[in-house]
């Protein structure tokens, strides 16, 4: 059973994540207001904001997934409390250094810090780039140690092939691999691979930085490595949330637990490969990239949707269709989150089609679709877990009117905010522009609309924040019974 220590560290994580979430949403609204010409920031201030928003959001929702998986994993194996705490401390230190780099050192190259911009960025202080890389190293090491330690713990109970549920591919398996363990394994392998790529990118950066011009990196290789890291981590964090759904959706709905079958095992094993090769779609517009890789990119992006949509979504639908289940805020958030995930995924598959990418690449279509499966997908998965975690001993999981209104606010705000992005994308509005050229007629108007709806979303998040953190503080200050 989960120890009190684990509950406390989980509460601490959740409160920290939610505080940073609120701040990062405000930064997002500030960006949209600037693009709508309601406020006026210097371009440099806009880009430091954008970089902070991006890296903070990716960081917190990644750790939110890790925290949930770590907590639930305790049902199967003992996890290390000290490593969880170690990851927390290093994450906080990393975030503080990152914010120092962006807000004091004016580091503003975007969260993907695409080579060689950070080395040739006139706007920032000379120490900002090396320090940003140091901060990423700290986060990378903390998260790598955490992921590896979780893997090491499950490997004590299951063999490697059992973790990947290979015995389910034959008939009558003797050992059952729970779906949660299978998906966590597939995801953690991806996380570890992507973090290793990040470490390589950072090492290559430092090699050039300290070589006094004797060593210059290859821009195409650096771009491949950067997106292998960036794309993979941004996707795997969603799968961490999905693992949580497999573990607790049936349980909170008062239904029998889901069990691994051969085709679930097969689908997730395939997805391990597809997720790791789909990143090639970030390089479609680099025509010097070998054509074979471009086509692999499109096929892998398509195929990656099969375990996600074909298995998870269909399972959720079947679990609910004409079944009297106990609805609560927890499974409702999961359910709506899955819709957001599907719709964002549709936007992603459309963009991952090379012939569409020619007119969508680096337009607002890109933030449109990734905000859909993050702000209306992954965030809801994590909020559901946070609710479930913070209320597990109190039976107040009914849907009150207040809950319904808050959900309504979240939905209306989120949908309006996203539609403004999608319409901007279809109107050829570039992403990452602090202000828009006057020729793009709809751009700043859409930005104003997006900002207004984002404020409704923020309102709903504040209510959730209050409800969840109130209970988490209760757990944090509770003493052993």
């Amino acid at each position, binding site marked *: 059973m989960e120890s009190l220590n684990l509950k406390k560290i989980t509460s601490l994580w959740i409160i920290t994540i939610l505080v940073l979430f609120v701040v990062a949403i405000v930064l997002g609204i500030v960006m949209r207001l600037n693009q709508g010409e309601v406020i006026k920031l210097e*371009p440099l201030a806009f880009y430091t904001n954008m970089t902070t928003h991006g890296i903070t959001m990716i960081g917190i929702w990644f750790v939110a997934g890790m925290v949930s998986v770590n907590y639930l994993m305790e049902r199967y194996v003992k996890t290390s409390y000290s490593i969880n705490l170690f990851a927390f401390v290093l994450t906080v230190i990393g975030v503080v250094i990152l914010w120092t780099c962006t807000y004091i050192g004016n580091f*503003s*190259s975007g969260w993907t810090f*695409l080579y*060689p*911009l950070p080395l*040739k*960025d*006139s*706007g920032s202080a000379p120490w900002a780039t090396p320090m940003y890389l140091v901060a990423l190293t700290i986060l990378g090491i903390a998260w790598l140690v955490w992921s590896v330690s979780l893997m090491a713990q499950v490997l004590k109970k299951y063999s490697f092939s059992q973790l990947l549920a290979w015995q389910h591919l034959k008939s009558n398996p003797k050992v059952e691999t729970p779906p949660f363990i299978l998906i966590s394994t597939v995801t953690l392998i991806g996380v570890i691979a992507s973090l290793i790529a990040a470490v390589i990118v950072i090492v290559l950066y430092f090699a050039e930085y300290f070589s006094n011009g004797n060593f210059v990196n290859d*821009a*195409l290789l650096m*771009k491949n490595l950067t997106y292998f890291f960036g794309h993979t981590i941004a996707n795997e964090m969603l799968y961490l949330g999905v693992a949580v759904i497999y573990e607790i959706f049936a349980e909170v709905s008062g239904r029998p637990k*889901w*069990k691994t*079958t*051969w*085709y679930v095992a097969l689908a997730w094993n395939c997805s391990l490969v597809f997720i790791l090769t789909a990143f090639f779609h970030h390089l479609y*517009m*680099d*025509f010097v990239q070998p*054509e074979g890789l*471009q086509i692999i990119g*499109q096929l892998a992006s*398509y195929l990656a*949707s*099969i375990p996600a949509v*074909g298995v998870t979504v*269909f*399972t*959720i639908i*079947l*679990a*609910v*269709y*004409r*079944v*009297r*289940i106990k609805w609560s805020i927890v499974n409702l958030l999961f359910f709506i989150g899955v819709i957001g995930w*599907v719709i964002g995924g*549709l936007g992603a598959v*459309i963009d991952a*089609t090379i*012939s*569409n990418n*020619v*007119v969508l*690449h*680096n*337009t607002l279509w890109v933030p449109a679709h990734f905000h859909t499966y993050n702000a209306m997908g992954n965030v809801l998965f994590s909020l559901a877990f946070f609710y479930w975690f913070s209320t597990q001993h109190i039976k107040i999981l009914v849907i009150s009117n207040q809950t319904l209104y808050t959900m309504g606010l979240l939905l209306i705000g989120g949908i309006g905010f996203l539609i403004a992005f999608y319409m901007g*994308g*279809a*109107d*050829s509005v*570039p992403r*990452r*522009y*602090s202000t828009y*050229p006057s*020729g793009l007629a709809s751009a700043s108007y859409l930005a104003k609309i997006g900002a207004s709806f984002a404020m409704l979303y923020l309102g709903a998040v504040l209510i959730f924040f209050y409800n969840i953190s109130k209970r988490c503080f209760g757990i944090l200050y509770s003493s052993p019974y």
Partner: protein
Amino acid sequence: MQQDSILHFFLILAAISTIVFVFVFFSSWQDDTNNEGVKNALRKRFWFILILLVSLGIFASVTIPKSPYFLFADEVPSKIIHVSAMQYAFLLSEKNIDAKNPVGESIILPSNRLVEFRVTSLDVNHGFAIYNSEMQLITQTQAMPGYVNSLRYKFDKPGKYQVLCLELCGVGHPVMQSTFKVQ
């Protein structure tokens, strides 16, 4: 425009998915006491995956041949334009551009003839995105230091075209532009 059909296609798919989910959600409220639900929601459902695979397969085989790498691949361009991107300007020229002493010139292109842009960068990554006179993005490629991307296009409408940068390249990114004419 391609973008409009993409948006409509997306909105229709999004609406269908939403309707399915809402329908499923309300079906769980009706009084159907006989229904015990499925024992294990992860049971196999081969046909569903098959439909998904087939439709994705059709989609891929229709779209992949339209990729920019294969367009006009076996035609000979009637004009070659060299492009060097730098923080925060584009240099376009019919002659090779010398990286040590880069200069550009104003460009007029023929309509309905194949043009090839040979795009590179002198500093960081940039995007080379061509917008028509209605400010619709019609095609693009990346400008990457150390590499040359060849982008082929046939302009069917005469008029003024704009080039915008579509890869974050520093504080001047949103004002990095250029123009050329098609006659």
